[in-house]
């Protein structure tokens, strides 16, 4: 018993020494000005799936904003963002590398792929609104090719035919067991936005669906 407790003590002692060393290293860093660099690790880095007629590709990081606003503020926000916020259900607007998705009667998702910050644009607007940066919450996946509709339909219960889900249509919906935002960028191209923690599941699901769609 006594021996055991001594063992624990010595382990704790070693830990304390380590911690002291770390603190000293951090202090030294602060003095010399060597900043700690954090490596950006993309959730789906390097994962591409190709089958006959369809390709599933992770899209590069983008700036995203979740925007809630009453009707009176929409005009001012549209002016600041440089893209007219769509008012009709299931529609989107695109202008100069910026996408605005209608998600609900007073809810939009704004995506900027040009590296500009839509959150800063919203911050300049005086009208009542709520803009939350969700750039790192979401991961985007592109499903392209003639079999893209069959691939997404494997897990999405909505009618995705061109007549009902035309180019530019966007909707929050489900894919398998995960919630996604589905956007039709072109006749043979979908953009799928999902939460980062769901991205492995969504990508794997789409890969399997693509394999089936090709078969």
């Amino acid at each position, binding site marked *: 018993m006594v021996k055991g407790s001594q063992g624990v003590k010595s382990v704790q002692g070693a830990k304390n020494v380590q911690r002291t060393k770390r603190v000293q290293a951090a202090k030294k860093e602060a003095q010399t000005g060597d900043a700690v660099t954090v490596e950006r690790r993309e959730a789906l880095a390097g994962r591409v799936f190709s089958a006959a007629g369809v390709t599933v590709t992770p899209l590069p990081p983008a700036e995203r904003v979740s925007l809630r606003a009453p009707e009176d503020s929409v005009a001012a926000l549209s002016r600041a963002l440089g893209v007219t916020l769509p008012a009709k*259900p*299931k529609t989107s607007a695109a202008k100069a590398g910026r996408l605005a998705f209608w*998600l*609900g*009667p007073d*809810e939009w998702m704004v995506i900027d792929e040009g590296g500009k910050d839509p959150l800063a644009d919203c911050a300049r607007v005086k009208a009542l609104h709520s803009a939350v940066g969700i750039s790192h919450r979401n991961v985007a996946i592109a499903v392209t090719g003639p079999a893209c509709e069959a691939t997404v339909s494997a897990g999405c*219960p*909505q009618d995705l035919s061109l007549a009902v889900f035309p180019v530019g249509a966007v*909707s*929050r*919906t*489900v894919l398998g067991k995960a*919630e996604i935002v589905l956007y039709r960028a072109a006749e043979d191209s979908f953009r799928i936005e999902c939460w980062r923690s769901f991205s492995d599941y969504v990508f794997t699901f789409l890969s399997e669906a693509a394999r089936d769609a090709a078969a």
Partner: protein
Amino acid sequence: MLLIRCPYCEEERPELEFRNAGEAHVARPADIAAISDEDFEAFFFIRSNPKGIIYERWRHIHGCARFFNAVRDTVSDKFVMTYKAGEPKPKKLPGVAK
């Protein structure tokens, strides 16, 4: 799969996008601290549970995320109609003889 019409999305969507949220038109008392235990029980626990037409709250949780009201037949499980939250009970139901 059931198709449910969302009054905000203005189209029929698959049931997987929706969640039931209990009975509709249950009015919360203005001064809930003043009501008797019996009245509170009636407000809080007692639901109509009819056989036939029921008025329910539903939420388009995996869509526009809005709450709305729906009229449903508990016998056939068919949705008679849906309408936006805050609107009064519809006086006339389409396709229901009464």
